[in-house]
């Protein structure tokens, strides 16, 4: 009974003082959850906060959705943690004004069902304890990727406020009544001014899981034809690292708006959730679909031409760029291997040995050589570029020179000294 009074007091307090029409809370959840310091320690031993900042929630995508529309199992108070799970595929209270149909995530549910991520925890589209999910589950739930964060960046908040103030006059000309503005005004504005994730953030979402090599080793892959389970390939395990080596990955890492993100190639169509195995003929990354995928919108449109078939076969997860499969552990000492200087010493050592041996041979045998010709191509250079005779002919000429009788040269010098000869006279 005491509990009831306390609750009622808080409900009254919130209704009187703080609540504004924008932050509607018909289910009264915020009467407790608005409290600062509403913390508890969960089964994993993690301190978790159950405090909900009402302005924070209201400015999120689901800000205008009352709590119990999603947390349907929560009936009695105080509720249990298990009863708070959310089913994202349920239809919402929001009606499309044009069609009068209740909004639902069913389309995305269907897409997810076809994707490689269908299975495990996601079944029924629930989102539970995220830490537990990260530790134990291989497939992501909705909440793993859609964390319901602020859709309006802090830098754009001023813009949003200004536009929101004008919405009454501009949208309100046709959409009269506060109900519409309350339900859709903010939502539509958020879509107009609020920001979608850019390619970097999209990739980061995928890399959060797929970049974790140890985690990826434990994944069980499924053959699309036989449905047989098998351990993952090296290509799959190191997919994030090999993608980072491509021009696509580099451009996005540089902050460029060009460069294809993971989703751009793996789920280009529809609602971006239908990621299939590349062996599946319906997959966007299947070899027969690649010309279409690479040629989408204003990317490589020429890839649809048959003559460019080689282009689409360019490996976007080229393991040879990593060379990781060639890395076995030759030493037991882990610390030694972790030092980058250990690895970098090998090429330096190789180059050093070549230089040392070269210098030694040079010093031993060719110290006194005056004219140095390269062993390979040296003769051809003399012939073509300098215009000398070939080596054999040069040797012959040298031999002739040495065999010349000394008498002839004496006569010549005499002639030169005299300046005249018999004919001239």
């Amino acid at each position, binding site marked *: 009974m005491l509990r009831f009074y306390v609750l009622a007091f808080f409900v009254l307090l919130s209704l009187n003082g703080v609540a504004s029409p924008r932050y509607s809370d018909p289910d009264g959840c915020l009467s407790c959850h608005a409290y600062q310091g509403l913390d508890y320690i969960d089964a994993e031993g993690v301190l978790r906060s159950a405090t909900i900042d009402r302005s924070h929630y209201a400015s999120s995508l689901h800000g205008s959705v009352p709590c119990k529309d999603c947390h349907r199992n929560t009936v009695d108070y105080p509720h249990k943690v298990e009863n708070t799970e959310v089913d994202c595929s349920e239809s919402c209270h929001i009606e499309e004004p044009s069609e009068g149909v209740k909004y639902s995530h069913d389309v995305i549910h269907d897409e997810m069902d076809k994707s490689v991520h269908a299975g495990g925890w996601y079944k029924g589209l629930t989102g539970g304890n995220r830490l537990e999910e990260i530790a134990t589950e291989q497939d992501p739930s909705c909440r793993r990727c859609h964390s319901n964060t602020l859709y309006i960046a802090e830098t754009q908040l001023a813009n949003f406020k200004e536009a929101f103030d004008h919405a009454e006059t501009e949208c309100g000309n046709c959409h009269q009544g506060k109900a519409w503005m309350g339900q859709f005004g903010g939502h539509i504005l958020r879509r107009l001014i609020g920001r979608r994730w850019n390619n970097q953030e999209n990739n980061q979402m995928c890399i959060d899981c797929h970049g974790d090599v140890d985690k990826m080793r434990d994944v069980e892959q499924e053959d699309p034809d036989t449905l047989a389970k098998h351990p993952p390939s090296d290509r799959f395990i190191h997919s994030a690292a090999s993608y980072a080596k491509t021009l696509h990955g580099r451009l996005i890492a540089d902050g460029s708006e*060009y460069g294809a993100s993971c989703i751009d190639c793996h789920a280009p169509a529809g609602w971006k959730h239908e990621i299939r195995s590349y062996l599946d003929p319906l997959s966007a990354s299947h070899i027969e679909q690649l010309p279409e995928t690479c040629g989408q919108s204003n990317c490589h449109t020429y890839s649809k031409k048959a003559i460019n078939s080689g282009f689409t076969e360019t490996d976007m997860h080229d393991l040879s760029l990593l060379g990781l499969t060639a890395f076995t552990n030759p030493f037991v000492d882990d610390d030694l291997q972790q030092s980058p200087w250990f690895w*970098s010493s090998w090429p330096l050592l190789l180059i050093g040995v070549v230089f040392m041996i070269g210098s030694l041979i040079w010093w031993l045998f060719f110290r006194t050589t005056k004219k140095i010709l390269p*062993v390979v191509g040296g003769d051809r250079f003399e012939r073509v570029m300098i215009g000398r005779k070939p080596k054999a002919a040069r040797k012959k000429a040298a031999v002739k020179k040495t065999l010349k009788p000394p008498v002839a040269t004496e006569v010549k010098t005499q002639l030169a000294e005299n300046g005249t000869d018999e004919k001239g006279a």
Partner: protein
Amino acid sequence: MQVIDKVKAIPKVQKFRYIMIFLASASLLGPLAFLPQLVGSDDLCGTLCMRRFYLYFPGMTWDDFFVHVNAAAVGVMAFGIILLTTLIFGRMWCGYLCPVGGLAELSSRMLNDRWKIEFRSLPQVQIRYGYFGFFLVAMPALGISACSLCNFITIPRLIEAMSGEYRGMVFLVSSVGLVNLGLLLLLGVFASKGRAYCQFMCPIGAADGLVNRIGANLPFAHRIRIAKERCTGCNVCARNCMCGAIKMVDKIAVVDQVSCMSCHECVDVCDWNALAWTTPPRHKINEPKRIKKNTEILPVPDWQAVHFHGGGAVTQEGGATKGPAVSWMSVFNAMILLTVVSIVIVGSFL
């Protein structure tokens, strides 16, 4: 010390050139990578790539081309500046700045000549533009990524490997990395003068060479030029030319302007002042032939002629205030140089 004497004997321009290559390498490659880091990249890939945007894919439209250009905007700008300076001053980027060819050249010069391979006598133009065409059209269509044979990846990664970066090591033991390393060693370090890769395989060098040749006869274009009547046919320049651009034809040196990098070494080694880095001559040369450097043919007179203008009596002081004659072409060229330099400086901060 013999080594110090050898270093002292290096011609002035060559010392300058080596220092420039060293500085360019320090600012463009790791671990400093000063210039790449300005655009948020730590090597010469991504938005900095100068080598991929002009590939031709059959059926490509202009829109595709502009997408490629925009994707690597900084690299395209750098490429444009390189071609512009080449048109006016000769291949300055290749000879004085390029860290990729420059490092290979410097390391090759430290090795002894006996163990090097002489590539300079091969038919350069044919091989280079044959490969260039293959690089532009056939390789993209066949699906060989332009990046797989890119020396602009290999050198930065090699530096990374030396500095202990895991990424560089891993690249060098991969198949692509090994092929590139082999090309670098064979066509770079163990090639005579170390510029064989530039001569035969570098696509930027190929485009640059074309511009060099096209602009060679423009009145403001500086190139290495030969005064034929002064050439004695001693072939020192041909032996020292690192690009194999000088060939002895009928015992007179001839410069191939497609391959010449204007590195100035031939000018430094010529004893007869037969070569110079100048604009094309606009008058018939009427100078005594074959004057050896530092040789006085005629005694320099110890008197000075005083010129009087007709009409008024002009004093000697009046004549002196006129100052030296101004070469307006040099002023023009200096202005172009300063403009280009300022574009580079401003552009790198944008």
